[in-house]
């Protein structure tokens, strides 16, 4: 064994959750290797468009047709634009097989998708963890909200989350920085909903932005969010959380972290003598050179699908079907979020009010269906975004030409149009055994690793949920007096929500799950999985905050176990 390749911990994947695990391990003095299959994106230096003005982009933010045609998967993502396409994986660079249509949006670099994420950070509640057991789908979560709550708090304090203490039990309050103010229409709608509905709430979305930096943020070199809303380019002020400007440099500063980009993990090495994982096999993304690194504990945070795939590819005499796969469920029970339904309307009023400035977040309607009891003909429920705006009216008149056209555009300042509102559904989907990630028997990628096959789809439950969302929000909008209400099913393909989860699910019973309550493989307890792969169910909240809380909790557990020599 190359002693230079021996660490106490290896973390696979330098994205949202892996970087948080690395930060926690390094803080506790654990010598850690952080592996990333993509390039190193350094905070500030590698945000080439961060301060470019809109008019400085050749295509004004749009992607060329040839690029969109060559990358229909990446181009399907709302955030894939001229100003940040360099953070997305091009379709043909890392191919996979869609047994059913699946738009897998990826960002292979240090920081992963934390550079381009939507930054919404609502906590899960007790109702979410109780859900599978109460409603008889998936398996019971091996933990409850109280197990994760302190770790939510720790992550929130470090990351910086703005929000109001709303006292809503479906999205518990946390360690919040001051929230920005809402619009007059948001407040109006919130009051209408409060008046007409029991247990429905319209709150302001908690988000990973620093509205007022605390010492911990200043220590990270991060400052106040300036509401530029150019977040997906990378923020030169560190105003929003990404791993590049926060957890990774923090971990590096401890002196305990080695960061190795361009490291494609082939598999995890299992030592039959010790019954533990002993290291990882890595292929250099550029030179194709194979290397092995060794550690006492391994954190797998490659992203839900890749984490499941790495375990499936980690075959040994003891685990012929993949590391930890005694149950045969590895790669199964995948799920995602249903973002297909939207609604919009016009507000007939508040014409004496307007918005000044911009906001990096918006309204949020926590789940209200089937929370306290089963009340519909579908399982579970949905949360929803809720946005309000008053935009400038579009000009010019289609008939104008020449001086008339010029006058129409430049003869006056653009006029305010009416207030408009919009909402999008964020529905829970049910994990099913037939929703899977698996490895192809024959085809391999350029590093010799089997291609990943993905299959998941909507079902009747999702269709009913869309219908209910449209009905309920139409009702709420009508009660608010909104007009010109339009509902839409955008037909989004699974994966486009960028919230794929499961495949290495947690549970109490090794026969029906892969991970235990500490995110350890039941059958190989020095391997922890704390990204989206660990999720037993999906609930409705944007999941990144929960992944980081899991990573923090599991990392601290691993440190305890290492100190006791129990793993």
């Amino acid at each position, binding site marked *: 064994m190359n002693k230079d390749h021996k660490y106490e911990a290896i973390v696979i994947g330098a994205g949202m959750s892996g970087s948080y695990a690395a930060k926690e391990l390094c803080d506790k003095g654990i010598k850690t290797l952080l592996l990333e299959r993509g390039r190193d994106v350094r905070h500030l230096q590698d945000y080439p468009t961060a*301060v470019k*003005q*809109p*008019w400085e982009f*050749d*295509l*004004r933010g*749009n992607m*060329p*047709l*040839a690029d969109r045609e060559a990358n229909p998967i990446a181009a399907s993502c709302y955030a894939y634009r001229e100003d940040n396409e360099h953070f997305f994986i091009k379709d043909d660079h890392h191919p996979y097989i869609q047994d059913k249509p699946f738009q897998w949006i990826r960002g292979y670099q240090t920081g992963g998708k934390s550079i381009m994420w939507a930054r919404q950070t609502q906590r899960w509640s007790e109702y979410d963890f109780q859900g599978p057991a109460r409603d008889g789908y998936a398996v019971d979560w091996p933990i409850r909200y109280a197990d994760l709550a302190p770790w939510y708090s720790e992550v929130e304090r470090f990351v910086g989350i703005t929000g109001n203490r709303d006292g809503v039990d479906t999205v518990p309050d946390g360690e919040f920085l001051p929230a*920005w*103010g*809402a*619009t*007059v*229409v*948001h*407040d109006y709608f919130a009051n209408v909903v409060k008046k007409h509905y029991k247990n429905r709430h319209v709150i302001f979305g908690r988000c990973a932005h620093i509205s007022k930096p605390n010492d911990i943020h200043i220590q990270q070199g991060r400052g106040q969010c*300036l*509401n*530029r809303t*150019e977040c997906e380019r990378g923020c030169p002020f560190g105003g929003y959380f990404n791993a590049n400007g926060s957890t990774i440099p923090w971990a590096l500063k401890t002196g305990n972290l080695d960061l190795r980009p361009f490291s494609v993990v082939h598999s995890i090495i299992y030592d039959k003598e010790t019954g533990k994982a002993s290291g990882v096999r890595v292929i250099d993304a550029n030179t194709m050179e194979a290397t092995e690194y060794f550690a006492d504990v391994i954190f797998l945070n490659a992203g839900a699908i890749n984490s499941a795939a790495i375990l499936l590819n980690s075959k040994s005499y003891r685990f012929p079907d993949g590391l930890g796969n005694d149950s045969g469920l590895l790669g199964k029970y995948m799920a995602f979020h249903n973002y297909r339904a939207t609604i919009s309307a016009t507000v007939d009023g508040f*014409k*004496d*009010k*307007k*918005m*000044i*400035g*911009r*906001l990096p977040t918006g309204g949020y309607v926590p789940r209200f269906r089937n929370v306290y009891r089963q009340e519909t003909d579908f399982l579970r429920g949905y949360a929803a975004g809720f946005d*309000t705006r008053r935009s*400038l009216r579009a000009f*010019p008149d289609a008939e104008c*030409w*020449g*001086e008339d*056209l*010029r006058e129409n*555009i*430049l003869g006056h*300042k*653009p006029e*305010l149009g009416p207030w408009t509102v919009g909402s999008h559904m964020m529905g829970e989907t049910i994990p099913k055994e037939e929703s899977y990630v698996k490895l192809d028997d024959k085809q391999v990628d350029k590093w010799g690793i089997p291609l990943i096959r993905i299959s998941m789809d909507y079902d009747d439950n999702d269709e009913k949920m869309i219908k209910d969302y449209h009905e309920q929000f139409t009702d709420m909008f009508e009660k608010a007096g909104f007009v010109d209400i339009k509902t839409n099913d955008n037909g989004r393909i699974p994966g486009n929500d960028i919230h794929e989860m499961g495949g290495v699910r947690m549970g109490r019973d090794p026969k029906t799950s892969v991970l235990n309550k500490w995110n350890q493989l039941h059958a190989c307890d020095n391997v922890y999985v704390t990204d989206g792969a660990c999720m037993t169910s999906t609930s409705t909240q944007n999941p990144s905050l929960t992944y980081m809380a899991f990573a923090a909790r599991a990392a601290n557990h691993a440190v305890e176990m290492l100190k006791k020599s129990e793993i």
Partner: protein
Amino acid sequence: MDRRSAIRNLTVAAAGTLLWAGCREQYVNVLSLYNSGSLNLDQKHKTYLNQISDTFLPLRDLADGIERPADFIIRMINKMQAPEQVLKFAQGFEAYKELMKGAQLDINTSDPRVALAIVKELIAENPPLDNLLGFVHTVRGYSIWNLKSSEHYMTQYQEYAMVPPPFNGNAPV
């Protein structure tokens, strides 16, 4: 006076001030500048396209903070349109040149109002959308986009600032 008479009068007035045969520019066919889905205009055609854009949306006096429209239009056409659309644009451009030539107009020296009157007449006849009409609408549309996405318009008219003022969702109009 009807539209046709107006155009005729404008044309006569414009022609009367010019020596047509001596000053008309010689242009290659635009289609010769099309290659494999890309239109690479020579300087003469760029100037011509700038003139057309300025005819549809006169901005020549506002050069600061607005990109020259021909550069923007051709870049958008080449990058954002399918090869067959680029070809149609080139064909439309050539048809536009022919239209002006038929009216004995020199784009560099004639009163732009004359060219505009011809274009408006063309649109008023409500013909099927052919390459010529498509060209006209495309140039107009991209000219507007070029203006509205310019530094000049965004800062002077939309009050855009990369760092906006503090948010107020309840500000008086």
